[in-house]
């Protein structure tokens, strides 16, 4: 492998986009109102586009001639490196928006830093993706605020979503030993910087939304190491269905 450390890093980025894009795609045709149906599909499309670029690059770093499809469709469950947060089921609209918001608030500062990466390819992907992610974050922040500070019911649902999803947020900032090498080479930022930015955004939006961070801060992790929740298997059963049922065909 050409650059295993960077490969692992890019794979995590690509899998995050892929799995969340897949999840959001489930909403298409079922949104709470047409306008928002279209908005969620736009975010899903952006994420799938990002997944294609990132996984293609991962394939290059891997050096075995794999393209984005080979990586997206033909790995085993424990080879996916997405954070657990992103494979969680959509739940209701509050849950979907909260999941997306917590992720966007992480992705935006991350892409801002990756823009300065000494790896040109990563910098280029970050540049395109950052524009998309800024908009996602704006949109999901608007919604978290409206749901939190809307009706009693929406507040309750938004708070429930936050309580449920908060447990998966620490994992977003997962960093390996190998990452420190990449950091010292200026290829990727240190996660502590990203977390500081993330906390700032999250705290201010949640405050405006009148939502409170759960007091129990017990955190789950595992996705980054390939240890997933029960949900990923079902997601992959759909995602991989065609490639597994009809191997080696072009579509």
């Amino acid at each position: 492998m050409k650059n295993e450390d960077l490969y692992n890093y890019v794979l995590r980025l690509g899998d995050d986009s892929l799995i969340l894009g897949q999840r959001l795609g489930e909403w298409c045709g079922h949104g709470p109102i047409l306008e928002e149906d279209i908005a969620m599909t736009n975010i899903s499309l952006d994420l799938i586009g990002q997944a294609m670029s990132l996984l293609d690059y991962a394939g290059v770093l891997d050096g075995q001639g794999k393209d984005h499809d080979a990586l997206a469709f033909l790995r085993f469950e424990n080879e996916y490196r997405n954070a657990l947060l992103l494979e969680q089921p959509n739940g209701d609209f509050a849950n979907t928006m909260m999941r997306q918001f917590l992720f966007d608030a992480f992705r935006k500062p991350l892409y801002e830093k990756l823009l300065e990466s000494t790896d040109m390819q990563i910098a280029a992907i970050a540049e395109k993706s950052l524009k998309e992610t800024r908009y996602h974050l704006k949109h999901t922040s608007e919604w978290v605020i409206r749901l939190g500070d809307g009706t009693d019911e929406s507040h309750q649902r938004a708070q429930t979503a936050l309580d449920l999803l908060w447990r998966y947020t620490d994992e977003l900032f997962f960093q390996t030993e190998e990452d420190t090498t990449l950091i010292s080479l200026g290829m990727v930022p240190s996660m502590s910087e990203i977390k500081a930015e993330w906390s700032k955004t999250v705290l201010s939006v949640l405050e405006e939304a009148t939502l409170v961070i759960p007091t129990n801060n017990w955190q789950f992790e595992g996705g980054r190491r390939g240890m997933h929740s029960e949900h990923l298997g079902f997601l992959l059963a759909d995602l991989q269905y065609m490639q597994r049922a009809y191997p080696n065909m072009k579509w």
Partner: protein
Amino acid sequence: MKTMDLQELEKRFQEKIDKEIKIEPNDWMPDEYRKTLIRQISQHAHSEIVGMLPEGNWITRAPNLRRKAVLLAKVQDEAGHGLYLYSSVETLGADREATIDDLHSGKAKYSSIFNYPAVTWADIGTIGWLVDGAAIMNQVALCRCSYGPYARGMVKICKEESFHQRQGFESLVTLCNGTPTQKAMAQDAMNRFWWPALMMFGPSDDESPNSAQSMKWKIKRFSNDELRQSFVDATVPQAEILGLTIPDPNLKWNEETGHYDFSPINWDEFWQVVNGNGPCNKERIEARTKAKEEGMWVREAAMAYAEKRALKKTA
């Protein structure tokens, strides 16, 4: 302003239509014209939205990321089309949510094609090719409809539709040049979708009583049978390129008429499906009703927030 009697107004209205002057929202129009348009445009809008479901159910299972993105973008376009159309219904004084409630109660109809299941990946290509193809045939004609907002909406929709049919055809080309399994999958989809696609143009001319008036008002420019024939004529050569067999033993070129002859359509099936007895009518309406009901608290929350904000501003 001097008051005109109804006859005079109707006469002037028809003169405008005859002179190809578009009717705009605030212009005087006969009640029946308004009603016909509300019915037709909202049915069209419902078709776009319900039409998202059969294809939408393949988004999570698309065979590669390119096809997934294309399918998402395509189904999203249909949501946009529904929205443009609801937007023109609203210019006629109808309320979008009320027309949607009519869809859910079964009072309003939508294109019967979407009551057929999409069971294999080949169905997705076939829907793009045949179903969007048939829709385009209809919609291109509607771009010249006498009602301004509908005609303009159609122009916008037709521009977007052109990629729908192409992506479907492209997908089928891949299957038909692929393995025998893929080719068989494509033929199977063709066998199931051909007749329902022909039914999309609606009952034959002698069975559609409202047609004459709609033609006179230039809401419609071509009859159902004319459009259906154009579709068959355009599609048969495309099927030949794919190497797919059209499931009609009587299909053949007629030198005299310059058109393809084809077997009579099974109108019993058509009416059964229109009236709720298609394979998926129940699922489609349930899915749409569920989306609206489960979205209620979301829409209410956003309204409540907006009202709170407005109060704060004025306070």
